[in-house]
């Protein structure tokens, strides 16, 4: 029995409305006020907010705790879970706990390798032992088992179904590109209800990937939301294009940002164009919008994109 919970996100998608998710990165701190501050800026501007799970393998407030803070502030979280730090026992226990606290959306990810934490200015914990007991697709199966069959991965029951709206990620342009649609199909077969993609800057190319997913009947089974990261400078686009696997930025876009008098304004303009292009792609059910370390930009961008008010907000 499928027991998809009512959440802003699931309701928006079920109603056939263009969905919008954003991202709230938990702080490197134990201070709930830092999360609350972001929550106050973002309240009402998206249907749900992804709360990252120690992204880039840097220790931050846990995604469960930060999700709960958001929930208390009236924002609906998409709690992210990575397979790097917890085995199937801890993950399932945390899923039960998260559900008890009111979390209804979960995004299942493999997670950045622990060596990523030492990539920037931080030390990270490159000497950490990783777990990867299960992978992201197995994690999706586990959440689906808890939800639809009230059964744990090991076969033991839980006393009642655990209602989660199950999300997964998709990197359409990563090699081996031929397999990326197949891998998406596996995630959907495992139980994914919605898909958020790696950042897309080439909507034409993404449209081709979407056509392949439509041909496979995947867009009827799961809602696909392309990711958009607000560009802040030509350097940022260049960096992502060269260093972030799966992100492809067209040369013209980098040149356009470079030539712009006001790079920030140009980045917002590009974001609006990308949202518009996404809206016009067949099969796309919404967008996942991120402004890294600049969440304050989102309300104006979302308003300018004509996506306010959100369906679930008062």
């Amino acid at each position: 029995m499928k027991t998809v919970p009512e959440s802003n996100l699931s309701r928006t998608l079920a109603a056939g409305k263009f969905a919008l998710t954003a991202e709230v990165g938990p702080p490197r701190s134990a201070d709930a006020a830092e999360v609350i501050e972001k929550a106050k800026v973002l309240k009402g501007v998206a249907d749900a907010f992804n709360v990252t799970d120690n992204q880039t393998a840097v220790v931050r407030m846990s995604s469960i705790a930060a999700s709960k803070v958001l929930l208390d502030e009236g924002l609906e979280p998409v709690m992210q879970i990575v397979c790097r730090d917890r085995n199937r026992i801890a993950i399932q226990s945390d899923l039960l706990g998260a559900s008890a606290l009111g979390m209804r959306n979960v995004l299942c990810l493999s997670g950045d390798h622990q060596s990523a934490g030492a990539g920037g200015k931080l030390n990270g914990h490159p000497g950490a032992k990783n777990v990867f007991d299960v992978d992201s697709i197995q994690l999706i199966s586990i959440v689906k088992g808890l939800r639809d069959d009230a059964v744990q991965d090991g076969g033991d029951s839980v006393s009642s179904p655990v209602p989660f709206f199950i999300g997964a990620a998709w990197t359409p342009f990563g090699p081996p590109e031929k397999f990326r649609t197949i891998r998406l199909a596996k995630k959907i077969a495992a139980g994914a209800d919605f898909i958020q993609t790696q950042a897309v800057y080439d909507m034409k190319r993404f449209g081709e990937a979407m056509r392949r997913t439509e041909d496979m009947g995947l867009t009827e089974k799961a809602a696909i939301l392309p990711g958009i990261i607000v560009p802040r400078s030509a350097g940022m686009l260049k960096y992502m294009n060269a260093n972030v696997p799966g992100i492809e930025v067209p040369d013209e876009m980098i040149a356009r940002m470079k030539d712009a008098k006001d790079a920030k304004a140009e980045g917002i303009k590009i974001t609006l164009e990308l949202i518009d292009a996404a809206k016009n792609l067949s099969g796309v059910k919404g967008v996942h919008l991120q402004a890294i370390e600049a969440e304050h930009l989102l309300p104006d961008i979302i308003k300018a994109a004509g996506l306010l008010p959100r369906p679930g907000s008062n």
Partner: protein
Amino acid sequence: MIFAEWKPIDELVDKLKAHSKVLLVGCATCVAECAAGGEKEVETLAPLLTMALKKQGHAVEISTATLEKQCEWEFVEELAEKVSGVDAVLSIACGIGVQALSERFDPMPVYPGVNTSSLTIREEAGVWAGRCAACGDCVLGETFGLCPIARCAKSLLNGPCGGTRKDGKCEVDADVDCIWNLIVDRADQRGQLELLTEVKKSKNWSGSRHGGPKRVVREDLR
């Protein structure tokens, strides 16, 4: 082969400086193949250690021996006489060899001279790469002979993560192939991509260290 590399000389000096006579023991099997613990390395390391110890004011006499296999009792036994004349042993065999000496010659202190890390193949001269993680539940029959447990940084079983670089390398190391990129290529070349479409459920890791210390009893051989 079992792969090992020398520990830093300083670390070895620190362990050996309190002793006066040390027997340095190599093994002519895996660690010789990976140029860390064979006879050649024993004879190279001995004078290096003697000098490093002397530099710090420690006169330690280092004798040497290399066994055919440090993990087999009959070869270990050959050392008995030499061990009786020293007050410490430094083994540059893998962790199995170190423990064999430690067990046979207890209470003689036996120190490891290498760090044992993986099961590798020599790709070319001077280059070794991991091939097996001894996971206890081999999947090579389903992954076209390429191991995602040992060769994927995340041991993924259902295809590549989002971290495959544009050139098909792993995000964790620009010189290492994304093994899933190779698995998919091989499946595609054989026209069997559909064999990778099935969702692989969670793996049973209990056949490896995760199931507790390994002990196997074969009654037919007892």
